C-alpha cells in the first residue's frame, strides 16, 4: 500500500478541524480465559474516538495512531515517504490529507481552513448529519412509533412546567387576526398528495419570512436585507431550496429561492423529484412525504462566519434564524389555509447530494413543508381544541 503513495511522491498534512474523546473498550482476555488464573477476564483498552469536521462519521484510533496524527504538521505539506509507514492508515481514512487528492477529503478540509468555524460547532454540525436514515422504521422496530410504545419503552416524561408557589393571574389575551392564526397552528401529518397548491399560495408563504422587503446598501457593495424575520448581525444567511410537486403553474422539480427578486431558479437534478426522494429527505416520515412543497432551510455558513469568526454562538444563532423562518411560514401557510410542518429529522447528506451542496457551504438544518390538507385524519395530529379537525 505504501508503494502506491510513494510512487507518486505524495505530500500530506494533518486535517484542519477535529476533536477526540477517550473511550474505554473492553475485550475478553483470551490468555486469562485459558489459564483460568482467577484474574479479571475483561481487559480495558483505551481508544480515541476522533470526530473530524470534514468526515461524516467518527474514527477509532489507537493512542499511538493519535500521536502519529498530531505529529504531522497541519499547515506545511510533508513528503509521505519521510513519514513512518503506519501513517498510511491515517491517509486512507482521511485524517491526513493528501495534496491534490480526488477523493474529496482535501476539498472539504480546504473549506474548513477558510471557514472560520469554532471547532466544536463544526464537528457537531458535520456529525449530526444523517444519510439514508429511516427514522420511523428504526422507531417502529423498537415499537416506539406510537405513544404507548414510547412510554412503555422510556417511562413517563418529566412534567410540563411546575405548578406550586404564589402566582399573579394574568388577564386573558385580546383577540386579533394574529391570535386566530396562532390558535390554528397545528402541524399537519395528513396531506392530500393529489391536490394542487396555487402559485399565489407558494409565493405568499415564501415571501412571509424569506422575501427581501427592503435593503440597506453599504458603500462597499455589501447588502443588508430586511426580511419578515430577524437574523443575527442582519446577515440573513439562510437559503431556501425547494422540492415542488403539484404546484399549479410550476413544473415539478428542485428550485432555489432568490430572496431579492422573489423568484425561483430551476436546479438541475440527477433524478426526477418523486415521493421516494421526499421520503429520503424527511428520513422516512411518510406523513410528511406528500406535501406539495418542501423547503430545505440551509444557512450559508460563509456569510454568517464572515462576521462571527470562530464564534462560540454563531451556530446557535443560525439555528435560531431557521426557527424564526419556520414559525413565519407556519403562520403564513395557516393564513393561506394550508397544512404545514417543520422537521429536523432529515437526511442532510442525501439532500446535499441531491441538490449539490457542500456541507460547509449551505448546511441543511430543517425542512419546512406545506400543502393541501387531506379530508381525513389518518395519522394523529395534536389538535386538542379541534381548531382544524372537527371532533367526531
Amino acid at each position, binding site marked *: 500500500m505504501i508503494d502506491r503513495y510513494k510512487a507518486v511522491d505524495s505530500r500530506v498534512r494533518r486535517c484542519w478541524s*477535529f476533536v477526540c*474523546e477517550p473511550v474505554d473498550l473492553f475485550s475478553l482476555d483470551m490468555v486469562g480465559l485459558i489459564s483460568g488464573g482467577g484474574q479479571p477476564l475483561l481487559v480495558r483498552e483505551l481508544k480515541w474516538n476522533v470526530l473530524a469536521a470534514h468526515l461524516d462519521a467518527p474514527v477509532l484510533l489507537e493512542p499511538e495512531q493519535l500521536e502519529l496524527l498530531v505529529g504531522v504538521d497541519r499547515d506545511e505539506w510533508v513528503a509521505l515517504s519521510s513519514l513512518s509507514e503506519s501513517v498510511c492508515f491515517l491517509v486512507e481514512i482521511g485524517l491526513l490529507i493528501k495534496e491534490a487528492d480526488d477523493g474529496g477529503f482535501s476539498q472539504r478540509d480546504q473549506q474548513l481552513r477558510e471557514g472560520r468555524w469554532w471547532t466544536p460547532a463544526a464537528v457537531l454540525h458535520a456529525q449530526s448529519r444523517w444519510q439514508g436514515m429511516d427514522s420511523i422504521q428504526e422507531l417502529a422496530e423498537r415499537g416506539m412509533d406510537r405513544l404507548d410504545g414510547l412510554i412503555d419503552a422510556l417511562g413517563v416524561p418529566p412534567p410540563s412546567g411546575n405548578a406550586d408557589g404564589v402566582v399573579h393571574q394574568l*388577564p386573558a389575551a385580546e383577540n386579533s*387576526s*394574529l391570535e386566530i*392564526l396562532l390558535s390554528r397552528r397545528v402541524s399537519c401529518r395528513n396531506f392530500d398528495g393529489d391536490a394542487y397548491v396555487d402559485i399565489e399560495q407558494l409565493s405568499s408563504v415564501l415571501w412571509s419570512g424569506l422575501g427581501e422587503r427592503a435593503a440597506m446598501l453599504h458603500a462597499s457593495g455589501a447588502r443588508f436585507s*430586511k426580511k419578515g424575520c430577524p437574523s443575527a448581525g442582519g446577515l*440573513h444567511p439562510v437559503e431556501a431550496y425547494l422540492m415542488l410537486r403539484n404546484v399549479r403553474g410550476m413544473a415539478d422539480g428542485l428550485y432555489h429561492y432568490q430572496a431579492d427578486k422573489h423568484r425561483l431558479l430551476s436546479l438541475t437534478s440527477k433524478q426526477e423529484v418523486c415521493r421516494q426522494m421526499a421520503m429520503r429527505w424527511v428520513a422516512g416520515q411518510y406523513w410528511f412525504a406528500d406535501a406539495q412543497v418542501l423547503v430545505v432551510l440551509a444557512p450559508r455558513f*460563509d*456569510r454568517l462566519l464572515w462576521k462571527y469568526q470562530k464564534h462560540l454562538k454563531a451556530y446557535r444563532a443560525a439555528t435560531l434564524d431557521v426557527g424564526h423562518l419556520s414559525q413565519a411560514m407556519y403562520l403564513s401557510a395557516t393564513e393561506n389555509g394550508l397544512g404545514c410542518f417543520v422537521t429536523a429529522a432529515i437526511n442532510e447528506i442525501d439532500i446535499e447530494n441531491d441538490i449539490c451542496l457542500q456541507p460547509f457551504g449551505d448546511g441543511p438544518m430543517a425542512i419546512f413543508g406545506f400543502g393541501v390538507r387531506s379530508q381525513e385524519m389518518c395519522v394523529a395530529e395534536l389538535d386538542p381544541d379541534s381548531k382544524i379537525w372537527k371532533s367526531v
Partner: protein
Amino acid sequence: MRIRRCLQIVAELHHERHLDLALALRGQVVWRDMQTWQLRGVHLDGAVAVESAGLAVLQQVPALEWMQWQDLSVQEQDSLQPLLKAGLVYTDMDEHAAVAAAEDAFADQYWHPLSAIYHRHSRWQHADTVQAMERSGTRTAQELREVLGSAPPPAWVERGDSTKLESLPRSGDSPLEQLFAARVTCRNFDQESSLPLPVLATVLEWVFASRGHENVCEDTVFLKRSSPSGGGLHPLEAYVWAQRVEGLPAGLYHYRCIDHALAPMGEPEVSLLQALAGQDWFAQAPVVVVLTARFARNFWKYREHAKAYRALLLEAGHFSQSLYLAATEQGMGAWVTCAVNEALFEQALGLEPMSEGVLAVCGLGQRGDVMDVMELDPAGAIWQPASL
C-alpha cells in the same frame, strides 16, 4: 484511594505561534507552532490545557471503573494533579464527591455527548459584547466592513439555471403580512414609560400559553402551544424579567403556561446589563423574556440524539418569531439575542445549565421617539426617514 476519569471528555488541539527565543537571541526570527491539548468536560466551564504527557496519563485512568491511585507512578500522579483539580478525573475521597455526584446526574440525562460539550462551552459568563465591539472598532456595519477587511459573502447567491427563472406573483396584503412588514428589531426603548400589564399578558398568552393539552395518561401530558415542538414535548420555559410593568412589581417571574400566570422568583441578584453582555440598547426594555430548555423533557424521547439540541434551538426561534409578531401587533418593539452571559441568567434564575439551559433572550416594550441607536429599517416601516 481510587481514581477514575469523567466519562465525557473532548480533547482539541490548540495551536499557538511562538517566536523561537533561542534563535531570536541570535538574530533569527523563526516561528514555532506550539500544540497543546485543550480538554473540555461537561461539568466544567472553560478548557484545561495539557501537554501530550498529560493526555498520555489521562489514558491510563479508566472511566467505567475505579483504579488504585498507588498503581500509578509518582510521575503519573503528578501529571494528574491539574486534571484532578479541574475535575476531569476524580477520586473516591470526600473532596471530589461533587464531581462524582455531577457525573452520576449527567449519566441520567441522556445528553448526546458532543451536544453537551457544545452547550456547556458555548455559554458565556463575563462577556461584554459592546466593549468588545468598541475595542475592535466594529460598532457600526461600516466599521465592521473596514475591520474585517473584506466584504461579506453576498446577501444572496444565484444557484440554479438563470435562463429558467420563475418570477413569483407578489403576495397580496393581509393582517399577517402587515406585521411582517412592520417587524423591526428595537434598540431604542422609551425609558420613561411602563408596559401595561394587559399588553404583557396578551403577548405571553399568544406566544407561550398552553392552548389545550392531551392527557395520554395521568402522568403523561402533551401541551398545545402556538409554536411547534419536537415530539410535542414543549420543554421550553419562559421567565419574565420585569423592569417596568404597570401593576406588576419589578422582579423575576416564571410564566406558568398552564395557568397563564406569573410566579414570582424574587429580585434578581445580577445586573441585567451584564447578563445581556453589555447590550445597553436591549437592557432598557421594560420586559425581558428568558427562553430556557428543560433538556430532560426532550431527551426523554430523543436520548443521546445528535439532532435533539438543534431541535431545541429551532423551537426557541419559533417562540421568538411569534413574540416579535405579537409585540408588533401590540404596537411594541421587540428584540432577540443569544449574545448573552448565560451563566448570569442561570445564577439569577437558579438553573443548573446542563438540566435547564438558556438558549435565547427576548425583550419588548414601547419604542422611544428618537432613534439613537441604529436600527435596520430601510423601508421606513417604523421610523420616518426624517428622523434618521
